[in-house]
């Protein structure tokens, strides 16, 4: 009798202690996938713990119940359920069953985010800042001065967008050399170089690229999109040579630049061929050309499925409510598979082709993720295009992939099951 009583007391105490949860489901029923990331991120900033339920209802989030968070969900239009501790326990048990390709990742601390953008940048120039602003995720803007003086160590996560690390000003010369924005951008870069003691912009950018690489080596998380992906690796490969034509850095490119590329210094790509013609709007053979892609109607890419319990990182990066996603172009749209280093994980590609959209790899104690294309909801974003209004794309699967990257550094590292 006493034992029974004790059992009931324990159960009652358990119920008293057990906490309700906010369950943010991320499947097709979610009303605003993008803001769901912001709510979770900001819950972490408040010191709350969150669990990321990989592959469970589109990669859902469970947060300890908190009135403020619940209210934020409602104000931001994020659909959620308030569930009891026992319902949460049921979900946990489903997720952790061995026969389900699911897992729980505890999110501990919101990463400190820096976005590498020039001072004169417009928010719509960059899909990541659009997504962060829309999701209400705070970030700092940094530029060459900050990188060169070592400020990267203050951040956990760094985003690069369509900046050109080769010092060729985006290779826009043929089309835009007389445009005011191009002239201003070149002047700004040159002033930056002069201020930091460089004679050439290309040399300054090479050092910036090296500092960023060191940031990754020291445990930083790098996320790059569009031309920041290939131009970054090209800059690293070209550390011993001059690949810039006269109109970019004042003197001619090294005619032997191609043979002097050092692929051991790059993060993701190897054996690529430089596009040395300064009038051609392309850096190298890494990028997939529009003619290879064909019509927009057929441009879709597929996310790979990884084992949540054995490969949690790629699983986190590929959480989405759909696994076939419409493609989008950029200065760098996709990467040729044969030019990707074998150590790099391919996260998404165009099925049946050698065109890769989304990759991830490790360097030193950190990681890097490259995502081709400019704006997931603007198929052919061109200079002067109006900004994308994300309130019209609340459930964008392409944008979700960007936001997976900002939460992934918050995950607690746990031993891999091998």
């Amino acid at each position, binding site marked *: 009798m006493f034992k029974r009583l004790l059992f009931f007391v324990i159960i009652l105490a358990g119920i008293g202690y057990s906490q309700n949860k906010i369950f943010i489901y991320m499947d097709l029923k979610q009303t605003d996938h993008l803001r769901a990331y912001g709510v979770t991120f900001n819950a972490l900033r408040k010191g709350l713990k969150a669990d990321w339920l990989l592959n469970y209802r589109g990669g859902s989030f469970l947060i300890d119940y908190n009135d403020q968070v619940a209210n934020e969900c*409602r104000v*931001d*239009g994020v659909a959620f359920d308030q569930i009891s501790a026992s319902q949460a326990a049921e979900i946990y048990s489903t997720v952790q069953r061995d026969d389900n390709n699911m897992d729980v990742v505890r999110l501990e601390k919101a990463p400190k985010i820096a976005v590498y953008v020039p001072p004169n940048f417009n928010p719509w120039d960059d899909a990541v800042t659009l997504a962060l602003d829309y999701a209400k995720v705070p970030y700092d803007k940094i530029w060459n001065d900050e990188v060169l003086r070592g400020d990267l160590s203050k951040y956990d996560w760094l985003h690069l967008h369509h900046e050109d690390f080769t010092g060729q000003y985006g290779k826009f010369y043929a089309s835009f050399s007389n445009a*005011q924005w191009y002239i201003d951008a070149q002047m700004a870069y040159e002033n930056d170089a002069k201020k930091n003691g460089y004679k050439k912009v290309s040399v300054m950018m090479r050092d910036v690229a090296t500092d960023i690489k060191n940031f990754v080596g020291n445990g930083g998380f790098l996320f790059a999109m569009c031309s920041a992906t290939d131009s970054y690796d090209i800059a690293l490969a070209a550390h011993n040579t001059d690949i810039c034509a006269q109109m970019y850095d004042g*003197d*001619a490119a090294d*005619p032997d630049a191609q043979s002097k590329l050092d692929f051991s210094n790059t993060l993701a790509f190897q054996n690529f061929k430089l596009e040395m*013609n300064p009038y051609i709007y392309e850096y190298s053979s890494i990028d997939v050309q529009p003619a290879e892609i064909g019509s927009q109607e057929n441009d879709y890419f597929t996310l790979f499925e990884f084992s949540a319990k054995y490969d949690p990182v790629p699983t986190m990066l590929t959480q989405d409510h759909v696994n076939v996603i419409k493609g989008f172009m950029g200065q760098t749209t996709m990467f040729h598979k044969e030019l990707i280093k074998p150590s790099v994980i391919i996260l998404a590609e165009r099925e049946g082709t050698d065109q890769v959209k989304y990759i991830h790899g490790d360097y030193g104690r950190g990681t890097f993720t490259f995502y081709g294309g400019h704006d997931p909801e603007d198929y052919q974003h061109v200079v002067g295009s109006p900004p994308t209004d994300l309130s019209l794309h609340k459930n964008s699967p392409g944008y979700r992939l960007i936001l997976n990257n900002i939460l992934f550094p918050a995950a607690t590292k746990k031993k891999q099951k091998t």
Partner: protein
Amino acid sequence: MVKILCFILIIIAGAGFSQNFNDDNNRYILGENYEQSGYPEKAKEIYEDLYNRNTSNFQYFISLNRIYVLLKQYESSVKLLEQRLSISPQDINIYGLLGSTYYLMGNETKAYSTWEDGLTKLSPNALNYRLIANYAIERRDFEKAIDFLKRGKKISDDPVLFSFDLANLYSLTMQYKDAAEEYLFIIQRKPDQYPAVQARILSYIDKVNALQTTIDVFERKRDDENINMSHLLASLYMQGKMYDKAFDIYSEIDSKIKSNGVTLLNFAQDLYNEKQYEMCIKVFREIISKYPSSPIISSAKLGYAETLEANLDAEKDSESNWRPYSFNKTGDPKKVNEIISAFNEIVKIYPQSEQAQEALLRIGILKNSRLNDSEGAKEILDQLLKQGIDAKFLIKSYEELGDIYLEDGNLDKSKEMFQKLIQTNSIPEEEKNYARYKEARISFYEGNFPIARNLLQNIISKYKDNNSNDALELSLVLNTMMNDSSNLVIFANAELLSEQKKFSEAREKYLIIAQNPQAFVLQSLAKLRMAEMDLAMDNYDSSMKVLQEIVDEKEKNIYSDKALYLQGNIYQFAKKDSPKAIEIYESLLAKFPNSIYLDDARARINKLKNKISQRPEWQRDRTIKS
């Protein structure tokens, strides 16, 4: 025979020379192809060979130097250029190229001295400075280029040419004061260059510090006699939104060039586009009083009247439309009459014209909506309809008249107006459907429910039509309550009274239905309408009480989410209690997750939160505590 032989020999020799020439030319083209295809070494071989065989050929020389630079073989380039210099010591371009090569070698001192040599050794020529400056610009050494250009300008017969170059470099290097000085120099000497100068200045004026620095320069050196300089300064004032100063200058220009108000009219149009109505009115008044006989006086008068009206509309609180029902927002009668007089002027000057038709329509609308003078409005609009007027004015006139008759309680006449609209061939179908909807409403007010229903049915079937939603809403009431005609008649009567803005009487009728539990759906709607009538009469506490009753009924009353939303509106707009408004909107989100008001509520929460966060800390605290 000798002659023939000579002739043949000449032909053969000529063919040989021509063959040789074609060979060299083909080889040169091959060299260029190698160069363009990324084989500079092969190109170099060809150029070197061609040049060595014909050192006087400038094309070979320039290509060879180019390929040396491309291959970064700067020593060879120096040697070639020095050799060339010994042949053509008067060619300034060789000094330029040689300096450039030294620059690329990293020897800036030698580059500068080579360029200087070119300028000092050759006879003084301003164009040489410009040429050498271009070599410095190519090397993006803008400061050195500026130095050369400044010196060239001093000895030039056409210093304006140099000023354009200098101004361009100064603006590029963000030395806006110096850029402005150069542009000023140009305008002072060649006033006809005003359009080019203005275009160049405006291309960088939005950069930090550029505008004020430029204004300072032009203000300091202002010359009233130079009209273009005044124009430029006025346009800079416009950029800086210094409209008063711009007005002073344009007035002076107008008088000086005797443009009869044209300059001021253009200025007024710019002001109108920038929604600077007060200043725009001032300018129009100036034109009308100063140039009464100007050919542009009619445009000025129409512009004046339209600006007065736009200004009156702008005075309306942008948030004044939150009440579902409200009295007409009349303006200051003095101001309204001033607008009417301005429109009357147009009618007088151009009777029967399109402008006069528009003016009459505006007068009619203003009389009814701003002066509550429905008789006056009817008279004007009737007069207008008797003319053969444009379709767009005809539609608006019939609609306005229909509404006025409805407010006056003359339902037959109101219906007649809308029916006339339906019968007019030349108007779009959507406008006809609006008229049909209005006719249905009038039938509903009259108690002719089956007729109303039929009319509505026609509109509902056109689901793409903007009127179909309103039609559906009314149709729902009709269909649900068809069997309870006594309550429906009372409700229809209340609806008519509310449309006639007789809110107190309407509230009494709604109360009858609200207190009748038999009234079923109408009971809920009547309660909501009671609260809306209270709101129209600014009885916020009473409205709040009724709304709370509806909210408390929860899912029993289908309008409980709207009631909560209206409560939030009252706190936000009437009581100006932002924290409480936020609280109400947040509770709407929590209690009614499927409400159609969610998006509005979210938008308002975000707007109010932003407003609060922009206030100083101490004020934020106080607001929250209160």
